[in-house]
């Protein structure tokens, strides 16, 4: 193995690791706020990548139709839950949130498909992150006070449903998007593409953005308060249902960005997201589903291990990455004197 290959593997590892870090953040965020171990995170990646690729190719993506459907079901849930207290303002809010916005995004997708890279990018993130809150309303909000295990099983159900919907709306064909830019720069013997730089930039920007959101905004602080103590947050007037929706919107948005970044680098199928998401999980779990910096470091490590094992033992790449989790879990459970958990 010469230096070029080494550098190439490192770069590949860091690029993938950056994406796993983003997904790991989303998972930590969702778990902290809602206690959901969010298995369907990977589906948002696939949705993001496929939506972006289709928009870029001038097609209206399936997610643009899926969004109004999701929103409509969520509307029915809300109307039923509030049936005895329906007011004009409630209807107006619901109408805007669950009918006007989704239809506007659908229209925009029809008008703007294939127009420009920027438009595709913005639309993709808008459509996919708008799916998040409705998904929370339908699948998780009715179960919000149940145990972590019930939420986990619901998350697995959601994963199956979203993967199936991905197959229906995008088809079994894989898609690959055009690169964001042709820009490339040589770093010694190693060419660094604009796409790689975009991945690094997006990761750093999103981390900075999340930091700002959690440290500087009331919404962000409400999310952190909910993460620390749901009941306490409710007692000081934070709507924990609202925070769950925000958490899923953020998670879906992060998933969409990851998908957009991945789409030009590899062919994405409807079911690719799951395994990518699980690698984000490996990182998030190493971070104890709690620590952002540890998650970032772990994600880079996962990316590097994956990239090197695909060179030395490509057949066993997945085996190595997932087996890696077991010693980590072991160390974690030895290190933390766990408190007694009851179901």
């Amino acid at each position, binding site marked *: 193995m010469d230096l070029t290959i080494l550098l190439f593997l490192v770069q590949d590892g860091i690029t993938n690791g950056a994406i796993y870090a983003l997904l790991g953040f989303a998972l930590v965020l969702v778990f902290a706020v809602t206690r959901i*171990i969010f298995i369907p995170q990977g589906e948002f990646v696939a949705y993001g990548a496929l939506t972006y690729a289709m928009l870029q190719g001038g097609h209206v993506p399936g997610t643009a139709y899926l969004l109004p459907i999701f929103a409509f079901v969520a509307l029915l849930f809300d109307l039923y839950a509030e049936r005895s207290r329906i007011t004009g303002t409630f209807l107006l809010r619901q109408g805007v949130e669950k009918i006007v916005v989704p239809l506007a995004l659908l229209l925009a997708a029809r008008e703007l498909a294939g127009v420009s890279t920027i438009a595709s990018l913005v639309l993709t993130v808008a459509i996919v992150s708008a799916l998040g809150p409705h998904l929370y309303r339908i699948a998780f909000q009715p179960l919000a006070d149940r145990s972590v295990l*019930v939420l986990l099983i619901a998350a697995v159900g959601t994963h*199956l449903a979203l993967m199936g919907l991905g197959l229906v709306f995008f088809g079994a064909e894989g898609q690959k998007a055009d690169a964001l830019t042709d820009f490339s720069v040589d770093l010694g013997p190693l060419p660094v593409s604009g796409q790689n730089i975009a991945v690094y930039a997006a990761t750093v920007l999103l981390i900075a953005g999340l930091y700002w959101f959690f440290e500087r905004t009331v919404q962000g602080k409400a999310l952190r308060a909910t993460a620390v103590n749901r009941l306490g947050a409710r007692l000081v007037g934070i709507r924990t249902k609202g925070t769950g929706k925000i958490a899923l919107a953020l998670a879906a948005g992060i998933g969409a960005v990851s998908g957009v970044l991945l789409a030009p680098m590899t062919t994405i199928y409807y079911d690719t997201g799951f395994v990518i998401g*699980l690698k984000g999980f490996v990182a998030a779990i190493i971070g104890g589903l709690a620590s952002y910096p540890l998650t970032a470091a772990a994600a880079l490590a996962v990316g590097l291990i994956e990239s090197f094992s695909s060179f030395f033992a490509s057949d*066993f790449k997945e085996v190595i990455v997932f087996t890696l989790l077991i010693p980590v879990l072991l160390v974690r459970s030895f290190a933390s004197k*766990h408190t007694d958990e*009851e*179901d």
Partner: protein
Amino acid sequence: MTNRIALCLFAAIIILAPFVPGFPPFWIILLDNIGLAAIVAIGLVVLTGVGGLTSFGQAALAGFGAYSAAVLTTQYGWSPIATLPVALAVSALAALLLGFVTVRLAGHYLPLGTIAWGLALYYLFGQLELLGRHDGISSIPPLTVGSVSFHEPARLHAVIWGALLICGIATLNLLDSRVGRAIRSLRRGSTMAGAFGISASQAKLIVFVYAAVLAGLSGWLYAFFQSAVTPSPFNLNAGISYLFMAVVGGAGQVWGAIAGAFIITELRDVIQRVMPTLITDSALYEPIVFGVLLIVLLQVAPDGLWPLVQRILPEAKPRSIPTDAQPLTGRDMPVPRGSEILKVQDATKKFGGLTAVNAVNFGVKSGEIVALIGPNGAGKSTTFNLITGVLSLSSGAVSFAGQAISGIGQQRIAGLGIARTFQHVKLLPDMSVLENVALGGHLRGRKDLLSALIRTDRAEEAALFAEAARQITRVGLAEHMHKPAGSLALGQQRIVEIARALTMNPSLLLLDEPAAGLRHFEKGQLSELLSQLRSEGMSLLLVEHDMGFVMGLTDHIVVLDFGTKIAEGPPDVIRSHPAVLEAYLGGAAEPKQTSSTVAGGAEA
């Protein structure tokens, strides 16, 4: 017993079904698929529904059974039946190794761990040359035993459902046994289990291996059923699907697993067979239907469907209490009456910067009732946890009958004859009062998993239940014996905990707020019971806030405040002890100061 008879009848009908003229061969295949899935799901019932350990990896464990059969018959020429013990042993060994790592994991890390190794094993099956990589292993010979071949579908069908019947009955036996109660106690956390000498990690490992052996058996049968083995039936989705069956049917019951396997397998078949006539590309919709169904079910019928069926079935007869059972062996008091049985020396517990218990000294004499009192946050319950080994001492020592017990672990401390109740009631609410109390006798029984499965544990079980019933009657709850423990009033649940602790036949009994939530009359009864225990030679240490109760009953009182002992002595002395009055009522403040404090408080 009726459950077992019903299971036998049900299996007999299914086994004989193919001999009905005109029975569609296709249905036999479908029933076989249901049977194979139900065997795995029954294992999950014990693991997840009863033990509370969620596993997404059972399909991978089934893979061990299937590949063992495939490799040994095709590459080493073993006779099919000879591979059965190997297949089961390989599955059990795999589960033991995975279990050592994963059952230690707390809460939600466990299911994530099973997802990780479930995926890793699936990829491994698909990559190993020995296992034929992604193409798998084909042309596995039909199952033969001696000269009898089970090649014919109806015969193999009988084998599969016969195996299911055996697994079902073994599981019913397991759940109705000493080991089964230990497994059930896992859901209430390891502290409660440990207080009665149950090792939570050992019980978890047992149930994990048990479920894996059932999965391995299903995989082994699958290999001969399909005559070929590929990695895909053992992937994570299959693992999810097994868990799904257990949840849909109602995790926790054998019948639920069978119902779940029926529903899911049938539903999948309907989707694959019927929907193509309605819409093209119907295979697309399978995961959507399953995913949506799972979420709807969790929201509408969180306990699964079997409990709904159970509601219309006649109620099971309450367990009969054997009257002629051999009494359990008793225990001699470790020290003569009046000498010190428990000694707490300079016990200190620090949680980070907080010293919850600070160099506390006291002792309990045999045949004496000692009360530990003090305001909230004084460190009383922490002291209990230090004595019973739930928490480890930061410094100091605790000895029982002259033997140092600090650091020897909860189970061994329980084994010495120290029983306790909990401030926050830790009963299994769905289990009857009788079964909850029988859990207390865990250490007085010896029968293990194997004797539970083949039911050679009946005499010991009878003795345990007779003892449990005796203690329930003694504490005055005989009329509630067969009710679910969760249906009792909170005060009564505390009394159930006392009965459970008494079933351990302890020489030292630790009671954490036993009178809380009792009515006046009930408190009188409790006081009488405790006096009677004392007269029988038992020693008692109790935490209690009801001063009337404490003063009238105890021989000696230890007062804690902010983790430090501030007074000790007989009730009369404590009643008028200045430090105690100050801790409870505040200092003897002068009227002026009091009014200014109140005024200051109002301004703020």
